[in-house]
């Protein structure tokens, strides 16, 4: 009796009714308009790394893909920001030439374990939505069709998990050949809850890497890296410009000679721009005073096995993304209160600029003055440890300078995909 309850003689009627409700569709065939007859050229400016250009070219073949932003009619800036359950992508459309002042902004969400295919499909769908306002002004509208499907739209306000998201992860790799082998293991556990008012961010991970090198038939060198971290950040929003929070961390690290270390730091942040513009520009000043307790694996160069410390940190960071490129600038400093000589300051700069006609310039500079290496072991590092970069080494500075220049030119109609011979 129970078995046939829902799926007996009335089955066709139910299915029919449900189909009627769920998939009642109207089909629209788009129409010509005589305003613009040449092909639209779009420039996709991706700062997320998620754009699969070949897939987009396959799915949206009725526009042209410019290699120079200045040749385009529509400049699309793709940016992303993290959410509790994944990523929010933002597509910002800027009309140029005949489409001047026709701009649009579309956002969509991706779950953290959506497949690459789901991500690229969502990107294509939203790109199509955003291109309609331009295509409606061209003769190519006849090649488009639009169907509206009244379907199961669930009430988003009903969330039994109340925005809590939990992630468990385990990654491992094992590789080698006759005389060398490496084992890498990492496990993670994250708990997040992101709302407009609060952010709760707990992340923990355990990393264990071991490498063996057979130097000769009698000598083998083993190198081990062992790191455990538990990090908790709680942030309270105070309007569009302020944030208040606390950060706590427990850590053990073979790289830094830490048997056990803990940190507790209240923090405050001010952003000159509203946080709602964070995907495009942010200028934040961030400050925290922190308490530390550290327990060392080996005696340090300052003859300590453990110590309580008190220090404070100030960061000033600016990032912006515009049609011509991207700028990131940050500077930060820290010192311990028990000895003002124990400090570090650093400065980092990135310029990624699309100069003109396919010419782009990337500049990166980083400089840090380091005088706070309290954890350095007294015994120093062996030759193997130095070469394998498995331990922290004494230094008073570190720097990186990189300069990249790239110039792309040629055909404006590079839309064709020809996957033959792939990656031989």
């Amino acid at each position: 009796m129970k078995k046939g309850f829902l799926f007996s003689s009335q089955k066709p009627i139910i299915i029919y009714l449900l189909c009627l409700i769920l998939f009642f569709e109207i089909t629209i065939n788009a129409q010509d308009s005589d305003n613009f007859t040449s092909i639209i050229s779009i420039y996709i400016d991706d700062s997320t790394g998620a754009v699969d250009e070949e897939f987009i070219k396959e799915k949206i073949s009725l526009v042209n893909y410019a290699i120079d932003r200045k040749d385009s009619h529509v400049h699309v800036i793709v940016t992303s920001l993290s959410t509790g359950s994944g990523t929010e992508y933002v597509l910002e459309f800027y009309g140029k030439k005949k489409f001047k002042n026709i701009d649009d902004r579309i956002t969509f969400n991706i779950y953290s374990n959506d497949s690459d295919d789901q991500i690229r499909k969502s990107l294509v769908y939203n790109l199509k939505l955003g291109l309609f306002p331009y295509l409606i002004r061209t003769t190519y509208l006849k090649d488009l069709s639009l169907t509206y499907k009244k379907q199961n739209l669930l009430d988003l306000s009903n969330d039994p998990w109340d925005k809590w998201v939990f992630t468990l992860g385990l990654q491992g790799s094992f590789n080698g050949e006759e005389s060398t082998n490496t084992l890498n293991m990492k496990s993670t556990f994250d708990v997040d809850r992101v709302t407009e008012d609060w952010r709760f961010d707990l992340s923990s991970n355990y990393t264990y890497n071991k490498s063996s090198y057979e130097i000769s038939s009698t000598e083998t060198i083993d190198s081990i890296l062992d790191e455990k971290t538990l990090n908790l950040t709680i942030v309270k929003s105070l309007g569009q410009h302020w944030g208040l929070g606390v950060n706590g961390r427990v850590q053990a690290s073979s790289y830094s000679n830490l048997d056990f270390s803990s940190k507790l730091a209240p923090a405050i942040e001010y952003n000159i721009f509203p946080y709602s513009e964070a995907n495009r520009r942010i200028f934040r000043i961030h400050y925290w005073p922190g308490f530390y307790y550290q327990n060392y694996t080996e005696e340090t160069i300052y003859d300590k096995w453990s110590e309580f410390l008190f220090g404070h940190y100030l960061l000033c960071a600016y990032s912006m993304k515009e049609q011509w490129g991207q700028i990131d600038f940050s500077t930060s400093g820290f010192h311990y209160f028990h000895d003002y000589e124990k400090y570090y300051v650093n400065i980092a700069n990135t310029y990624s600029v699309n100069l003109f006609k396919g010419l782009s310039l990337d500049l990166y500079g980083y400089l840090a003055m380091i005088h706070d290496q309290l954890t350095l072991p007294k015994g120093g590092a062996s030759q193997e440890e130095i070469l394998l970069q498995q331990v922290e080494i004494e230094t008073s500075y570190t720097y990186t300078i990189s300069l990249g220049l790239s110039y792309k030119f040629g055909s404006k109609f590079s839309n064709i995909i020809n996957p033959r011979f792939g990656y031989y």
Partner: protein
Amino acid sequence: MKNIRFFIYFMLIFLVATGLFCAQEKSIPNLFIEADVANLREAIEKIEFVRLVENMDLAQISLKIRKHDFDSIYYLEFKGFGDFEGIDDDYVIKIKSEEDEIQSIIKNIEIALLKYMSKTKLKNNFKIHFDKNMKANKKQEDEWDYWVFQVGGSINLTGEQTRDTQTFSGFVYADRITDEVRLDINLSASYESQNYELIDSTITSVYENYSHTSSLVKSLGDHFAYGFHFGTTQSSYDNLDLYAYITPAVEYNLFPYWKSNHYILRAYYRAGYVYNNYIEETVYNKWEDHLAKQWLSLAFSANENWGTILASISGSNYFHDLTLYRLTTNNSIDFKLFGGLALSLGFDFSLISSQLSLPLSEASEEEILLGEILLETSFDYSLTFGFTYTFGSDKAHVVNPRFGY
């Protein structure tokens, strides 16, 4: 009994229908229209994703429609309010004489409304079809004849008190891709020097690689292709002062090539001439070799909603001595299982008996630790796995960028 069952069915359908209806109702935007054209109102009422309202104050979108008196030109003026504040748009629509005027203008209005709909929760309920056969590149004047060039270079310097690294690299790419022929020319150069200050000495490690690869591929329908590869390489890691090859190649793909973004199953064969000139004398007491070599590979890839699969097996050998071969298999899967469970697995393995460039002199301890030079081996392997399980809210779409990440 039958009545009870019928009643329950009825209630169930009613609940589902009202539930859906309410959910839809909340998200459907209100549209206010001001039109001096007859019959248009009834037609607009039929648009399912907006609700027509009589009162301008209730509207999230207002639409003013004017028609030119003598010909079929319509002016549409959209204005957004509330959540749509600032989203305004004007259109001029010319209806061709052979078309149904009302029907055409409704279609244009529906498409214009998408700009608003893309900001609502209903935005995923559309099916958009772009005609695939409509290719933008057809009938285009192209002064560059499909050639695209790219030139670039980079310098990277990093360091601290007792160690530093300098890296210089440059590249030139030229390609011409059409449906019939693909031509790729790549030139690349990289030089890296690492210095380590030890207690009583300084170790310098240099890695150099200069290479040129060219390939020409001719399409033969949707499944076949043939072509040539030509290339030269200089590599300090591989003890090669010059490695040069020229090989014709053929390929068969079981799936049509236009499905390559989703599925590929290809068999690929090439054979030809190889020249090696060694930096140091090899374990075979050679300074150079002229050889004939062949390669065969089978590769499968799939990229779908549920994840990706890559699997390949390939082998190569030299004709002068069939015991000099290399057999390799590379496999990876990345599955999005049910719920929030994701699984990835990778397995690579090679059987190697063709290390012709292996230097006679033994590698030093520093060279081994820094991974600077080819080491003797008859196999290599790599096994990877990853497992992620996410559970909890699937509505946590809020962005809160305070304190960075």
